[in-house]
């Protein structure tokens, strides 16, 4: 066939390959760079984390097999459980308040009103600002003699007490995260056909009933999406702790991500750090299955 001659890399193909075979190879080649990337930088690390987690490895010497030793250690390791607790607390303290505030914001600016665009920008801006820079600045904002206390009339030493340090970080995170949740909710709200409300309004449904029987059910997939991302955010949280408290006081803000960093890259216990990673990985795996199912439902992978 004439057209195959000028096909991409056409003249390198074996002559006996048919056009469709060639097209298949071309299609595969388009995806190849990305495939290689994910194999080398995502899949291989996961496999290698599993392998390392059964070893003792300090980067300097060779790896020594310890079987389930690292996992057994985690079971009785105070630092591990404290990191899990911190991660869980962060997720719980950060998620629901941020969702609620974001939902209120989204509901308030959902309909047309003066300055809607302005309000949306203001609520979203903290999300866009650099996490490192904001953590740096918030460690000053949260000082005992800082402006936050001055505005609230408190004198809490946010970042030095075990009870309040995580709250300090949560406050900053909610401030930074609420804008993102807001636009997610906003997109969800705007995708609900107006006709549903009109029909319900004719039936004489009040605001609350509209909310309960139309808005919330329609937003269910959005909520699922938000919950997954909140859990992931909890597992990822690192920068605020690193910058604002270094995981202190007394490890009260050392998250799972920070424990992995400390075990692996400060104490050079790659094996134990990998074991912690695997615990996180299992959780991610579950979330991924849930997420893929959601995508499948809404985007239709199988076309």
């Amino acid at each position, binding site marked *: 066939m004439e057209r195959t001659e*000028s*096909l991409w890399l056409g003249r390198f193909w074996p002559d006996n390959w048919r056009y469709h075979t060639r097209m298949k190879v071309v299609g595969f080649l*388009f995806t190849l760079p990305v495939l290689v990337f994910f194999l080398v930088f995502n899949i291989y690390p996961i496999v290698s984390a599993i392998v390392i987690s059964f070893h003792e490895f300090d980067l300097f010497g060779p790896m020594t097999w310890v079987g389930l030793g690292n996992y057994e250690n985690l079971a009785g390791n105070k630092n591990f459980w404290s990191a899990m607790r911190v991660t869980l607390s962060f997720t719980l303290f950060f998620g629901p308040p941020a969702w609620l505030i974001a939902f209120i914001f989204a509901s308030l600016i959902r309909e047309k009103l003066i300055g809607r665009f302005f309000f949306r920008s203001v609520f979203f801006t903290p999300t866009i600002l650099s996490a490192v820079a*904001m953590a740096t600045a918030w460690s000053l904002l949260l000082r005992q003699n800082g402006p936050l206390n001055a505005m609230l009339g408190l004198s809490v030493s946010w970042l030095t007490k075990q009870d309040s340090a995580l709250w300090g970080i949560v406050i900053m995170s909610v401030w930074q995260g609420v804008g993102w949740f807001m636009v997610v909710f906003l997109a969800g709200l705007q995708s609900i056909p107006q006709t549903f409300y009109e029909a319900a309004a004719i039936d004489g449904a009040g605001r609350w009933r509209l909310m309960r029987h139309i808005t919330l059910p329609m937003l269910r997939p959005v909520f699922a999406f938000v919950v997954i991302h909140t859990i992931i955010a909890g597992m990822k949280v690192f920068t605020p702790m690193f910058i604002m408290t270094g995981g202190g006081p007394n490890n009260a803000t050392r998250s799972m991500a920070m424990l*992995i960093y400390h075990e692996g890259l400060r104490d050079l216990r790659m094996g134990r750090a990998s074991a912690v990673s695997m615990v996180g990985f299992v959780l991610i795996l579950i979330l991924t299955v849930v997420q893929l199912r959601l995508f499948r439902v809404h985007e239709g992978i199988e076309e």
Partner: protein
Amino acid sequence: MSERSNVVRIARFGLLCVFAAVMLFPMVWIVSGSLKPLEQVFLIPVKWIPDPVQWRNYPEAWTSENFTRNLMNSLIVLFAQVGIQVFFPSLAGYGFAKHNFPGKEIMFVMILGMSLLPLQIIMIPLFVIVKQLGWINTYPGLILPISVNAFAVFFMRQFISSIPTEYIDAARVDGSGELNIFFQIVVPMVKPALVTLALLAALASWDEFLWPLIVISDQKLATLPLGISYLKSLYQAPAHWLLAVSVVMATPLLLIFLFAQQRIIESAAQTGIKG
């Protein structure tokens, strides 16, 4: 309009103003603090308008560390990562959307599955791998391992899927090569998606902290976020300098946001740029 709905409207507007003030207050304090003499930063009651306005905080803070070098590194990393993040996922998106080959579905689901995998979980083995590659303290080590995002592949596939296949078939019949089709037909049609992708990649790259922290110990390669964290942990890091540097770090993001607000907000809703 009934009287009641006007009251609701005004109440809602008032409420929004209060919320906006709460959200703005830290930003205003940061900017105002960055322009104050040190002894005024923590004055109570808060002094919102700096008097005198001390512009020299900025040059002083900037030159207190090697921020110029950090900035250059950040820009190198940013341009490289934006280029990679836009180009390869687009290629793959075209492959997934408009070609058929065995194993395509599985590959795509696998890549999609990676979209939730955070760096935090794989940082240890990734560090070991990058070490084996001899990439610690190099630009490739700094740029490549976190350069492609699974979501970008998904995003581009969705966009390219929406191009009518007839255009592409017509070009194939005309004898165009597949790369030509990609550059001359696909790319122009998905330009908005590419711009969005580039913006998101730029935002993420500018703010990436964990990976440079791990992979860079040679300070000649340190990026801006690392530079700021260094200033923070220094023996003498005056508050007004920290604030000034924070403002400098955040301003480009703010500018990008102001120029491309609609685009960023729409895609943020789908992706979780910060998530």
